């Protein structure tokens, strides 16, 4: 399978960096567990954000909740990216040709695009809302997309090993 992978991924898998990850007794399992712990934080804060955007938790002003959740989600996403790269590097050639991994990467790109809509367009609108105003329709669409995309990403991540 690795023979069919693009050369850059084969080179990454054969690098000293990747070999060190594989040859350590602890690095790979630790990265594996840390990836899941960051997933807890990311999933938790993303779900809080999305439920807010869908009009849940409406008894409180959503803006401070969204502002806090945004920071934790960004930090956790960075943690997932770093630990994910460690896991990927160890088996880059195999993973690059894995159809579920490929789908996961496409879905992550979609999730980031959706987050960019929230970050660069929706965020400003929300901060100018009054504290008890209903969420605009676009917020609900973005929240629903976010839930659907990130749950699919998690499902792909768990399924990679089985394809």
């Amino acid at each position, binding site marked *: *399978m690795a023979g069919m992978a693009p050369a850059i991924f084969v080179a990454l898998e054969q690098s000293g960096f990747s*070999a060190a*990850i*594989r*040859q*350590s*007794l*602890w*690095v*790979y*399992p630790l990265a*594996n*567990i840390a990836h*899941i712990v960051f997933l807890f934080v990311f999933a938790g804060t993303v779900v809080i954000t999305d439920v807010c955007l869908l009009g849940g938790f409406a008894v409180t002003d959503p803006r401070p909740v969204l502002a806090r959740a945004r920071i934790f989600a960004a930090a956790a996403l960075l943690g997932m990216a770093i630990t994910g790269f460690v896991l990927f590097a*160890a*088996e880059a050639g195999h993973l690059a040709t894995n159809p579920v991994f490929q789908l996961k990467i496409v879905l992550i790109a979609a999730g980031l695009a959706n987050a960019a809509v929230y970050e660069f367009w929706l965020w400003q609108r929300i901060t100018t809302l009054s504290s008890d105003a209903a969420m605009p329709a676009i917020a609900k669409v973005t929240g629903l997309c976010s839930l659907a995309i990130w749950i699919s990403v998690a499902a792909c991540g768990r399924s990679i*090993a*089985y*394809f």
Partner: protein
Amino acid sequence: MPKIIVIAGALAFIAGAASAHHGWGSYDAAKPVTVSGPILTLKFENPHATITVRDNDKTWTVTLAPTSRMHSRGATQNVVAVGNNISAYGYPSTVAKDEMRAERITVNGKTYEMR
């Protein structure tokens, strides 16, 4: 009640972390094979240790367990060392040619479970 939830959550987490390696989906459990012969190469690496084994005129790639499990079962680098004779019982890959996943291995009369 909250105690039960915490315990259930902890168990689910441990089970998830422990099984977060490759599944057995691409191996044909209906056609078990036994590969016997000298070990030609060893990669004692994560996520799984792998060896190649010369069985008559065929060279098999045999996928073993994660290195931490290899250690805890006693199947260390010295046991699956190049040159040692091994007998590996397991399942052939449905994807990669001449690759198999070992259920258990026997070296020098001692059997080590890989799962």
